[in-house]
């Protein structure tokens, strides 16, 4: 009884629903219940996305009203509303919606990835400039080796790297560590999830 009296309602909801879903994941008998709750969660996540949309709108609307770089906010709001209305109206496969996606979103997004090629090269150069610890040195040496192994550089292939060292690093030296990293992350995830189901972590502000 003490538990119930002292446990805030939100925490009780999180713990109860979390336990139900977890049990249903472990025991197939509860699949229907799980699917029902998951459908609610999927719906709520979509509504939350709309609230994110509203938040973005509100922030930039306020900025525009207060004259803080209003042109940028105006562009954002216009793009947001026009895209939403058109995509909603004619569906994501509609001509105008596809046009917006293919002519605006996709080029900018791929171009940002292209910019990343330059940013990452600069980051690696900075790493070379500034860090002198063991991990950074091993990181850089491996990076150089793997770049040499990636194929012919300036049209010249170095078989020692592409045929011998590169595959060895990829298939033996890194695979074991990647497995270790994945297992480590899964252990951390498990413990973090359990802290929430114990009610110890309450990101919902309970």
């Amino acid at each position, binding site marked *: 009884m003490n538990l119930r009296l002292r446990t805030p309602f939100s925490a009780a909801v999180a713990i109860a629903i979390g336990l139900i879903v977890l049990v249903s994941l472990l025991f197939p008998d509860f699949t229907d219940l799980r699917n029902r709750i998951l459908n609610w969660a999927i719906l709520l996540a979509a509504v939350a996305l709309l609230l*994110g949309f509203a938040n973005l709108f509100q922030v930039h609307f306020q900025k525009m009203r207060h004259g803080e770089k209003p042109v940028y906010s105006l562009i954002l709001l216009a793009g947001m509303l026009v895209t939403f209305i058109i995509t909603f109206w004619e569906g994501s496969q509609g001509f105008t919606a596809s046009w917006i996606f293919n002519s605006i979103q996709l080029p900018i997004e791929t171009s*940002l990835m292209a910019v990343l090629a330059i940013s990452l090269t600069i980051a690696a150069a900075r790493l070379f400039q500034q860090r002198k610890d063991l991990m950074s040195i091993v990181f850089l040496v491996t990076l150089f080796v793997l770049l040499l192994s990636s194929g012919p550089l300036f049209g010249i292939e170095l078989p020692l790297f592409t045929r011998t060292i590169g595959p060895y690093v990829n298939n033996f030296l890194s695979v074991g560590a990647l497995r270790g990293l994945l297992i480590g992350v899964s252990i951390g995830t498990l413990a973090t999830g359990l802290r929430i189901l114990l009610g110890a972590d309450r990101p919902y502000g309970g």
Partner: protein
Amino acid sequence: MNLSDLQWIGLCLALILLFSVWGKNNPRRALRSIPAFVQLRRTIELSVEDGSRLQISLGRGGVLGPESAAAFAGLTLLRQVAEIAADSDQPPIATTGDGAIMLLAQDTLRSSYQRLGISDQYHLRLAQATGLTPFSYAAGALPFILDRRVSASALAGSFGEEAGLLTAATQLSGGFSLGGSENLSGQSILFASADQPLIGEEIFATGAYMDAGPIHQASLRAQDVLRWSVILLLIITSLLPLFEGLP
């Protein structure tokens, strides 16, 4: 030889509970030093000192997938930072690329402000969704960094390749960046480009290193035991078939 999913979960749960009550007062128990957390504390104090703003980037991961745990760890960090710096000149700001995590960040900040007795200073824009897809989230967060509206960015959540854009911008503006992600590609980018990277499961240790409470310490001890159990199992599982096959 292997443990079932239920057994793994049960073992982890039992260990967390056990370490929550056993040995928690042992003065000899400590945690290894992680430079990123030392630096994060220094950054928080600098931001309190000079009235600059910290950005806690919670990543683009949603709440309904394995990546949610990283965002939960980021929310723990947000709470700890807010408890210290919420009533400073420039309170910390949370940015995210997911609606649900944005709502949780707002909840976290609201309850922190309430605990500090400054609820009237809280407003919803302290936790923003700067974009609703991974790259647009990073693109939306860029102006904060480039315009120096934030002096430091702590990236704690699920980040992929877009992390590179944020850390590169931080470099460009002379700010400070700290980062951890559950996504391994994101980790590699953060390792190379963030001032202070968090590697592997270190992001999940945020609560314990930022003094979020004894259960976070207990959780780390449980993780330690679990990890060695896994090591043992790995050795047995891999070697057993080899010896079974010997004539």
